[in-house]
């Protein structure tokens, strides 16, 4: 259990095929030059990328469109909840930042008060086989967020790519069965522990961020932002959704669909009032949600440093830089003791 096991790269296909006999095995595929997760099939070319892929893991546990109930428009309007899927599955190739994201989602969806049963079943049926990073990509900044690229925390099984083989290690009981595979050979040596560079951008504390609520800086930080929703869709910890009914020929589904606080429609209320009409107010919401609100609610900031938001941003705006700029402003403000400005009228 506590030992590292070796898998020859040439055995990877056989190893996965064997797992696929019992599990639904989700692995990364490259489609049209882009990575995405799909169910393992031996005839498809797959690989494990060194760092995060641009599509968020979120979709595997909390899909962008998720039917929660079905109904027919008959005399009774009979509505049936959608049955949870309990087929066991393995999701393989998650990076530590993704796992951190899942841990955050657990806090949102599995807290005792409001449990999301469909999310719970997705979690229950899944064995997380995470991949330890061997390098940090351009946009990676998990070290800024207190994570380590090769930390196996939260994974059921951890693995790392080394030369022409992989090293696997079971972390939990759930990972045990995978570790029993005939293709894994126990070895003594662990993958080399790297010393990771310190975070590029030091950020302020959640409380300090909260103090920035009324600051003028949000206009500067939002000046070229399009306020599209792609960063929130890519983010592993953005969990907003809306519930809507979709009908077709008298049959209907009630579905949850990802929503995004960056879109203007998100905060528009009945009657037309919009609490976050300006881009600045929406950028503020997302920034503070990542760095402050999440901490107030769940005791953990929700940016995991995966860098996807930068990767997918149409304008390649850097969220970590934004956080840093903000922290810088906080420091400046503290120094000058200024910044008790009135609440901006525009917001």
């Amino acid at each position, binding site marked *: 259990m506590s030992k590292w096991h070796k898998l020859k790269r040439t055995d990877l296909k056989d190893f996965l095929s064997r797992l696929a006999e019992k599990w639904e095995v989700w692995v990364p595929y490259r489609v049209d030059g882009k990575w995405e997760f799909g169910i393992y099939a031996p005839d498809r070319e797959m690989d494990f990328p060194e760092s995060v892929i641009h599509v968020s893991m979120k979709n595997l546990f909390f899909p962008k469109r998720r039917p929660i109930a079905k109904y027919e*428009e*008959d*005399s*009774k*309007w009979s509505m049936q909840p959608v049955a949870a899927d309990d087929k066991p599955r393995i999701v393989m190739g998650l990076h530590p930042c993704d796992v951190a994201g899942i841990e955050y989602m657990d806090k949102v969806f599995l807290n005792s008060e409001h449990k999301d049963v469909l999310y719970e079943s997705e979690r229950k049926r899944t064995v997380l086989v995470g991949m330890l990073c061997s390098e940090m990509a351009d946009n990676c900044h998990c070290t800024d967020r207190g994570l380590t690229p090769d930390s196996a925390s939260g994974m059921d099984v951890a693995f790392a790519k080394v030369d022409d083989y992989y090293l696997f290690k079971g972390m939990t009981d759930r990972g045990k069965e995978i570790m029993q595979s005939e293709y894994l050979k126990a070895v003594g040596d662990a993958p080399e522990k790297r010393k990771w560079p310190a975070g590029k951008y030091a950020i302020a504390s959640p409380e300090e961020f909260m103090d920035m609520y009324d600051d003028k800086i949000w206009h500067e930080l939002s000046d070229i932002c399009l306020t599209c929703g792609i960063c929130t869709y890519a983010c592993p910890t953005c969990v907003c959704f809306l519930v809507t009914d979709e*009908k077709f*020929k008298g049959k209907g589904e009630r579905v949850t669909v990802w929503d995004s606080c960056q879109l203007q429609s998100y905060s528009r209320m009945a*009657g*037309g009032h919009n609490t976050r009409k300006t881009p600045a107010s929406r950028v503020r919401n997302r920034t503070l949600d990542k760095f402050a609100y999440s901490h107030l609610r769940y005791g953990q900031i929700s940016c995991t440093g995966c860098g996807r938001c930068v990767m997918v941003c149409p304008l390649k705006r850097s969220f970590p830089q934004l956080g840093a700029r903000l922290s810088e402003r906080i420091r400046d403000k503290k120094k000058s003791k200024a910044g008790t400005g009135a609440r901006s009228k525009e917001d």
Partner: protein
Amino acid sequence: MAKVGVFVCHCGVNIAAKVDVKKVVDTLKDMPEVGFAEEYKFMCSSPGQELIRKAIKDNSINRVVVAACSPRMHLPTFQKALASEGLNPYLVSMANIREQCSWVTDDPDEATQKAIDLVARQIKRVVHQDPLDDIYVPMTKTAIVIGGGIAGIQAALDIADGNRKVILLEKSPSIGGRMAQLDETFPTLDCSQCILTPKMVEAAQHPNIEIRVNSEVKKVDGYVGNFEVTIEKKATYVDAQKCIGCGICQEKCPVKIVPDEFNAGLNTRAAIAIPFPQAVPAIPVIDPEYCRKIKEDKCGVCAKICPAEAIVFDDAPKQETVSVGAIIVATGYKEMDPAVYTEYGGKKYPDVITGMQFERLVSSTGPTGGELKRPSDGVIPKTVVFVQCVGSRDESKAHAYCSGICCMYTAKHTMLYKHHVPDGQGYVSYIDVRAPGKTYEEFVRRAIEEEGVRYLRGRVAKIRRLQNGKYRVYTEDTLVGRAVHVDADMVVLASAVEPQKDAVDLAQMLGIAYDADGFYTEAHPKLKPIETASAGIFLAGACQGPKDIPTSVQQGSAAASKVLALFARDTMVKSPQIATVDPTACTGCLTCSYVCHYSAIEEKEFGKHRVAEIIPGKCQGCGACVATCKGKAITLAGFSDDEIYEEIVSCK
């Protein structure tokens, strides 16, 4: 929560023969929206409507779907039924299962299935219908009559006598129209001028009538009760206020080559002229195409001799917009140009003339002073052939329709001819003689039996000019089955009645319908012969179809009574099915304003923003703006996106 009452009509067997009405009710009564469902033999009958009222009372339904005939037929009936029970009349919807289902579908199963689908769809729709309140708008109690012929004059006089203001609009320099050109009228042979002129004068002197001659409609905006009509007065170059109508200008004008329209082009007149002696108003007009002063800056005689100094050479067209509450269209007809009939000479024979030209030739105010001489050489024609149905009942050359008046005026012409040339012989080439009016048949018999006019049944094949100046008319006598020809001194063609040249332009300005021939279409051929499909616009006279004088006068009076009935109220009830802008959703691009036909969309300040606003009084509810608004900030009550969407997606 909407609770829909569904009422399916048998319409006797009209629906029930194809659609299994019971099955429709049984299938739909369990729909979650439905609170009550019932079938009945005739929903539009009193007991049928009572069913609805009872269900509103006893079953507390708050929406109604009636599956029956077309909503165009009975929607108002059921709206009233709802209103009588205190339910908003706009909360009813009709499923058209007769015109659009039982009457057009062969197979009963298919028809039943379609009916179920149509009714279900309407149930889904009616849930989205909102209660609407009628809009009351003030009304301008002035009418405009377009066209100063006998129909228009009659309409104007009746409205004026009803103590309402009327504008009588005429595009030529005088009112009077076609009737003023006629010599005597059938079937009484009383002098046209003698009976018309008093009416013209009465109109001119009536305090409630404002006559505007030389004027045409250029634009029509607004809607019933509140039309805005833009009128253009042509340049006449004579100040009507100063002119005393002495006519000296007309005498002295050296340019005497203008074809005389009043005399149907038989002679020429001066470039400045009063159209005819009894004209109302008797003010001359300069024809700028001929006037040498206007064309070449020479002459100017009229200005020099005018005792009233009324000549204004720098006159220009003037536009003015008038507000009126109702419009009567009485633009009349024109006589067809027989040029297309090349076999009749195609106008190249001077003595082959039209009915109207004959009318002028025998008129004492005509070019010959009432002596009947043929145009080419002034010889008194001893033999005249009258050819009927020239352009009428002849689809291949001109029109399929019957011009209606030619049989009678031809009979009149033969009589006038005999009165002028007692030793002459008249022939009439005819297809059928149609004389359905009061004492009309007797009139025709008189021409044949007393005046000795010879009626030859058959269509004239050809007219050829002979060396001796006579015209050989080749025709046939189908009653004896023989080709015949007549050598005539003169031939009179009973040319067809046609809509005015610009009839379609005017119809499009007014937004009224017209038929394939260009005659204006009444709202219903039998029950609404005066109304058009556009509220507040009425028809009178030959613009709606060929008509004789008595019928034109009747229509003039009928149209006037419609206008007076309309003006009896102080406010107009307007349909609340109009568009409104949600200012919170409007971006102020104002592209909607460009597509609004009624200029009903204006700009308005809304907080810091500029938004579009629709003037309820002007909006007619067409929805063109709704389809233009990308952000869906405009809603059309009664045809909202919600309602149409539901109709599109609710079909199974």
